[in-house]
């Protein structure tokens, strides 16, 4: 884990479909213990689903029936929505247990301005899985006034 050296007024937890939510939450708690800040959970949508849905001939094979279906934008949206909802349930439950206030936002590559709005010109800290660095969405954080704290997820 990359140690945090500065105090931040805003802390973001970058969440994906497959990130280790409890570990990221623990990292956020540690950070907040040192320095209280406004906490926001950012669910970063996996854009692969949308890209795949835009392409002609893309198929989804059902595990249950083994039947093939055309993979549509609606289906991609449904997958992302379900993933975001599931992740939101998890993190909100943790926040409730810790009695912390939490804001939840969904971030897409198509909405980069959202992150700048959330930072509101202040120095922010983004807590993310180390795998997150390999995702295209990581570039959204580059060039902004925020520091990224990567949490090892090799125990997943």
């Amino acid at each position, binding site marked *: 884990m990359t140690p945090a050296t500065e105090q931040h007024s805003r802390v973001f937890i970058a969440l994906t479909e497959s990130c280790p939510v409890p570990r990221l939450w623990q990292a956020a708690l540690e950070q907040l213990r040192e320095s209280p800040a406004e906490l926001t959970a950012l669910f970063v949508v996996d854009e*692969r*689903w949308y*890209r*795949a849905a*835009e*392409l*002609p*001939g*893309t*198929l*989804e*094979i*059902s*595990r*249950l029936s*083994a*039947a*093939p279906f055309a*993979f549509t934008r609606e289906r991609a949206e449904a*997958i992302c929505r*379900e993933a975001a909802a599931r992740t939101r349930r998890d993190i909100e439950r943790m926040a409730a247990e810790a009695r912390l206030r939490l804001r939840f936002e969904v971030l897409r590559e198509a909405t980069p301005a959202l992150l700048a709005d959330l930072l509101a010109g202040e120095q922010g800290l983004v807590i993310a899985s180390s795998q997150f660095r390999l995702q*295209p969405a990581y570039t959204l954080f580059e060039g902004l006034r925020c520091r990224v704290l990567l949490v090892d997820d090799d125990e997943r």
Partner: protein
Amino acid sequence: MVLRPEPSAEGMDMAQNSFEVRVEDLRRTCDLSAMNFERSDELGELRQHLGQERAIDAIRFGLQIASEGYNIFVLGPPGSHRHGLAEEIAAELAVGRPADPDWVYVNNFAAPKEPRAMAFPAGQGKAFQDDMRALIEDLRFAIPAAFESDDYRSQLKAIESGTEQAASELTKELESEAEKEQIGIMQTPTGYVLAPIKNGKVLDEKDFRKLPDEEKERIQEAIRRIGQRMQEQFEQVPRLHKRHREQVRELDRTVISHAVSLLLADLKNKYSALDEVVGYLDEVAADIIDNARSFLQSEQAAGPFAAMGQARSFAQYEVNLIRGTAADGSAPVVYEPNPSYHNILGKIEYRVEMGALVTDFRMLRGGALHRANGGFLILDVRRVLGRPFAWEALKQALLTNEIRIESPEETYGLASTSTLQPEPIPLNIKVLLIGERLLFYLLSIYDPEFSELFKVAADLEDDVKRDADNVAALALVAADRIRQRGLLPFARPALERVIEEMSRTAQDGERLSTHMQSLDDQLDEAQHWARQRKSDLVEREDVDKAIVQGIRRLDRAQTRLLEAIERDLVLIDTEGARVGQVNGLAIVDFGKLRFGHPVRITATTRLGSGEVVDVEREVELGGAIHSKGMLILSSALSARYATDSPLSLRASVVFEQSYGGVEGDSASVAEFCALLSSLSGLPVRQNLAVTGSVNQHGRVQVIGGVNEKIEGYFEVCRKRGLDGTHGVIVPLENVGHLMLRQEVAEAVARGEFHVYGVRYIDEAVSLLTGVEAGERGDDGEFPEGSVNRRVEEQLLAYAEQRKKFAKQEEPNDAGN
């Protein structure tokens, strides 16, 4: 009412003397001096049922006869020691009777809704229950241990590895092919998405559009082909899983069957003589082996939903001992004090799980029939009849010779919910019903199955002859009960007094009551008064006090009535003489409250057409027997007097100041005498009261409650002052029943009161009028001046008058 001069004292004396009952016959005293004891604890032990030989023989016969339907009905009033008698004989005959088997209910693995009944030799049912309980405890450890063994784990790992490897090979092959074709496989929550990739990333639409058409077609063709391969693989996965489950199940069976065989081997050996049990143990083994893994789940399951799942429980191998016996060589004797349907037949209990009622073979409960199977069951018939469905259920069990536990709602088709249908258990039992005679006769008449099922009637005697043997026997019985009940010893005079009172209880000076409750009550109460005076011996005075206090506790109504007579609110004359007015005697009988009292009976006569009007009957206050007595009286009147002429009177007989019902014919002598007095014009002595019934020939007949009736009149006279003229006329046949209170007998001995026994109405009327009744002479006439002569003359006069009236009316009739 015409007052006439009183009859001559001389004539009266002669008549009275010949009918007066001897003092010694009024109250038969008891003398136990021949038994040579001073205190009851000196008497030896004699446990016998006084006078019940016939009932005892009947019970023995019923219990010993092997044929069907020979159940027993013990007839007798409450307190007659009917339970003790039945239980004593049953217990005696139960010894040495071959013990019936124990019965258990176990799970029926093929049909769990139909629990299976299994028989065991006496005493072994409990042992089997314990053995199965121990087996379950062993299984609770053995099954998890088997699954946790290194051997099992390594074999299971090998199966899992094999399955994983097979699945992995399928996936790897596909992934390799997809990678070659630059197709990415992405997992969604419900399946897999196939999309073109470049450098590990899904192509975006712009890049895809830039591709040559051949390349686009190749990609789409590759996606279709790989998708098809994936479909084929998905179809293989369930087969892989199925094969995996089969392999695991087979492994489980192998491991568990070994463990179970070891555990069951001893049990099968122990019960090898019982084929059914061995077969059941094999079924248990098969069930455990088939479902071993599910026991792990059930043992881990907890919370309210655990019971709702499909997990199996070791509880299904438990044994429900529905009837167990000690192998002591005697058959059971069971008394069920609350013979409800369930308490007789057993029941199916339920427990609530998640709002639903559930049950299984473990919740079957045995009833009295199960406990008494192979022996004797004692029931109170009144209680059986009073509990809903119990009587029909008992009969059904006896008719079919089997005990079928089912809910009454199901038996009568009132419930549609699914419940258990346990296998019926063979019934081998003798039932002793205990109840009053009335119930026996009602059941005999109205229930056609009753006589088929209860062929033996054991009719208890209410009383026995008061001879020297029975008196001695009763003394021994009393002494025995004093000992058994831990009472203070009774002095001989006290015991004599107790026995005298047992005659009084029997309502007969020549008999002794066998009502043991009355005896016990006397003994208890006498002891109480002895203790009150700090004595360690019960004396005669204590028994006297017990009797007096017993009467006092209940004599409120009698006292009020006596007061009413004393204040002339109820008109009763006890002196002088009146025409057409007789003191009759009535009895109030409400069980323990029983007393006699005088009642004024009056008669009026006039010319009429031969009617004797019973006012009580006319206003429907007279019962059937009373009406019958009046009709007999009417018939006797017409048969005795002026038989050649039409009976030409109208007579009316009334119980004065009687506002309740009148029943019985014991006042018919008094009514007859009142009529004769009215017809003859002879006044009736009011210092005498009379009781007795009369037949058509003027014969006075026996009546009930003679002692209370005499005592009732005695009380009234005593209040007003006994002057030596007071007395009561009773039927001569009732003299044997006399067992009057001591004070009455003493008053008679002093000449202050008299009791007369008469056989004929003429004797009664002579005593009452002081005038000879008179017998018809050879000339067919009654003696001049006799009562009967006067009556006949009056009747003939009425007939003559009637004839005159008839002649006067004839011309008018002809004119019409």
